[in-house]
Structures are given as C-alpha cells and as structure tokens.
C-alpha cells in the first residue's frame, strides 16, 4: 500500500512536471533560443486556450481544436514579430516593455470578449488505477505529450533545413545573411513557432487549466525561471529543469502543502542560479 502511494505521488509529480514543461517549451524557443524576452508568452498560452474553448463550444471536436489553436497563435505571433519584435532585436529592455504592454492588451481584450470567468471543458474522463488509488488519466497523458513535444522541437530544430537556418540566424545573424539566409524571415517564423507552441500548450492543457484571461501569469513566471535555469542548451536544459524543479515541487507539495511546494521551487531556483549564474547547461557541449 505504501508502495502504491509512492507510485501515485511519483506519477502525479511527473505529470505536473510535464505540464510545466509543456508550458515552457515555446519559451525555450523564443527566449532560450532567440534571446527574446517575450513577457506576453503567457498570453499566447491564454489565446491558445480560448481559441480551443471557442471552437469546441462551436461544435468542433476538442482534438481538432488543438491544431486550430496552434494556427491562430502562430499567425498572431508572426504579426507581433513583424510589427514589434522585429524592430527590437538586441534591445532587451525595450523588448520587455513592448511585450509587457502587449500582454496587458491581450489580457484586457480577453476580459472584454470573454469576461473574467469562463466555463472549462470537461476533462476527458478516464482513470488509471494504481493499487487501491485511482488517478485521472488526462493529466498522466501529459507526460507523453510533453515527451512528444520535446522530440518534435528537437527534430525540427536539428534535422530540418529550416531548423538549421533558424539556429544559424540566431547565432550569427550577419553571417547567416552572408550565406544566403533571409534571416529576418527565418526569425519571424521561429518566433511564430514559439508562439504556436504556447498556443498548443494552452489548448492541450485546457481540460486541466480552464481558460481565464489571467491564466498566463500562472505559467509565465515558472516557465521563465525554468528557461533561465536551463541556460544555453535550452531544450535539454529546460526538460531537465522542469523535471527537477516542477517534479520536486510537486513531490514536496504532496507530502506537505502546495505553498511549501512553491517555496521549494523558488528556493531551489535561487540556489541553482547562485551556483550556475549562466544556467545549468553553460558548459554542456550539446547543440540544443
């Protein structure tokens, strides 16, 4: 029985770590890879969630609402890059101010359109039994979703020609141009991919985290900290950090309270940043 309890704690912690990772991967691309501090990242998550909610309410099956949410957030991301980010590469504080303003605009728009409280969609009902305990199936499914997302982004960025162009444009922009890469177009696509990943997160997490205008805030702080702690090898680093910090916080929370879990998260983050100011992956010899 003790063993069963331990197994459920581990599984549900792994699933919360995965939820954190799902919300973080888009930021790992936009902030970790491109170095753009997008304070509106959480709002892209929110836009993804509302898009999925709206089309589901219109009668589209939930599973189909996810790609629609990705498409919508990618388009909005591309427009934001074109109008705002594009002019601010390399200007950290200006980017922060601009995207902060953008996040307020998106938040208020959501309040105006949807109000502050919206109904969730019912969680797809299935559960998994562990001994005498029973766990909701959908959150556990997120472990697989997080892994799939991670593999997808890794393959996209390392195996596709677009991915190589994207990394080249980010690492040495002028040289990327000098070998024929239209780096401004490539950067727009990369930012848009990052926003699309946030939209995907918002949509796929909708059964667990209901859409509200302020839902972005809940994720964005932990997501940013995860990417900062991860450091330059952004994808692998974020996965390990999300697993360690998110999982650790969740284990702590299940034995004590969720407040202690959060304290664990922030204390360990502070400790890691003190030990590794450039992120845990600063000295890793890996591409992503």
């Amino acid at each position, binding site marked *: 029985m003790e063993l069963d309890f331990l197994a459920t704690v581990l599984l549900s912690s792994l699933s919360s770590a995965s939820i954190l990772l799902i919300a973080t991967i888009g930021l790992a691309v936009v902030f970790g890879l491109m170095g753009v501090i997008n304070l509106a990242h959480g709002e892209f998550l929110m836009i993804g969630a509302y898009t999925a909610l709206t089309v589901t309410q219109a009668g589209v099956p939930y599973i189909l609402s996810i790609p629609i949410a990705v498409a919508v957030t990618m388009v909005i991301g591309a427009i934001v890059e074109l109008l705002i980010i594009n002019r601010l590469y390399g200007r950290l504080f200006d980017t922060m101010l601009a995207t902060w303003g953008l996040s307020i605009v998106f938040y208020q728009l959501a309040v105006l359109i949807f109000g502050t409280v919206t109904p969730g969609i019912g969680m797809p009902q299935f559960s998994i039994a562990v001994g005498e305990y029973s766990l909701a199936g959908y959150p556990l499914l997120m472990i697989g979703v997080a892994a799939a997302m991670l593999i997808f982004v890794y393959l996209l960025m390392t195996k596709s*020609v677009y991915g190589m162009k994207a990394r080249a444009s980010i690492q040495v922009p002028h040289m990327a141009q000098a070998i024929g*890469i239209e780096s401004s177009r490539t950067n727009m696509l990369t930012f848009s991919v990052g926003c699309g990943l946030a939209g995907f997160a918002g949509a796929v997490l909708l059964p667990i985290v209901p859409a509200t205008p302020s839902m972005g805030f809940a994720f964005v702080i932990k997501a940013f900290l995860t990417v900062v702690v991860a450091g*330059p090898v952004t994808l692998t680093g974020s996965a390990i950090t999300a697993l360690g910090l998110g999982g650790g916080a969740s284990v702590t929370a299940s034995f004590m309270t969720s407040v202690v879990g959060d304290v664990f998260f922030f204390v360990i983050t502070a400790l890691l940043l003190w030990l590794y100011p450039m992120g845990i992956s600063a000295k890793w010899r890996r591409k992503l």
Partner: protein
Amino acid sequence: MFKVVNATGGYGKTTIIRNVSLEVKSGEVVALLGRNGVGKSTLMRFATNLIPPMEGHVEIDGNPAPNSPAKRAKSGLGYVPQGRFVFPRMTVIENIAVAAATNGHDPKKAVEEALADFPMLRPKAHDLAGGLSGGQQQVLALARALAIMPRILLLDEPTEGVQPSIIDEMAGILKRINRDRGIAILVAEQNLDFCLSIAERAYVMEKGEIRMETDRDALLADKELQQELLGV
C-alpha cells in the same frame, strides 16, 4: 566578372572608404593589401552589402548586384569574414550543410565534398564549431563559403591567428579551388608571403582609398613597398 565601383561607405555617419573601385576578372586571384585600419574589412562588408552603400555599387557578371546580403550570396558571392564567425552551437557538418541547403544544393553531397577538400575537418565533423581551434574554424568558414558554390570568393584576413602549417595548407587549397573550379578570389591580407603565393595582382589600400594597383612581379621587385606593407 566582379566589380566594385566608386564604393563609399562606413558605419553610421562615419565614412571609412571613399570612392574605391576595383575589379576581379573571371578566374583571377587578387589581393587587397594594406595595413590595419585602412578599410579593407569595410570594403569587404560593402561588397557583401552587410553595410549599406553611401555611394557606389557592386557588379557581378556585368549586372548590378542585388541589394541584400542574402540575395548577393545567392548570386554567387562567397564571404569568409575576419574573425571567422562560424555558427558556434552547430556542428561542423551543420555549418556546411546549412550553407549548401540554403542555396538549393544537396547538403549531404556538399558535406562529403567539403570533408574531402578539407580532411582536417573530418575527425571534428560531429563537434560543435565553437569548440574548434582558430585554424580549424578558419578552414570551416572557408568550407562553409565554398558550400554555396560561389563564383567569387571574398576572404578577409584568412591567415590571422592561424598556425603556419595550416596557412600553407590553405594556400594550397585556395590555389586548387581557383584552378579546378574557376572560382575568382579577392583576398584582403596583411600577410604578404601568403598573398604573393596565391595572387597574381594586388591593390594597395591606404586611408580608405586605393593607393595603387600592382602585380606580383612588381611587388616582388619593390622592396620599399614590401617594407611599408610589412610594417605594423
């Protein structure tokens, strides 16, 4: 086949090069000589359109070169910058493959050719470019520029900070590339020996302008000019 006409340019409002004109004929190797700070690198960046022209233009094959670095690369202009600027968190293979694929060439074939041309890169093929030595990075930057299959190659101080054995190897490779593939080369250098070993003709720059045009034999005979160019 490659012409810079009345180039005037610099950074912001500061003019570095004034009214510079030069020409590289098809299949020719031309050196751009001059001491530190005379504007060689600025001229290279002007030629690649990495800095916008204040005046003047560039011609490739008698046509005005397009007004973007990326389009210029696609029209056959290869560039090896001073300081190499390889993509540090990409492997040696990826550095070459991305250059080939961007210009519509088969990346696998390009990588195979590059590793055959530059055997010293083969044991490092899967390493991140940022971890290579200076000389290896220089060779990689050259391999990357060649992967776009250029017809004119601009080299900016390719011997800077590179050990002598690799410099010799590089000279041999450049001569072979020039002969076998007919790629024209414009090389900015302070290393006179290196230039004399590959170039037939040279322009000498001074204070942002072309001071004179000369050829290998005249340069070899003119000890005074050699001294002047060698002085640091």
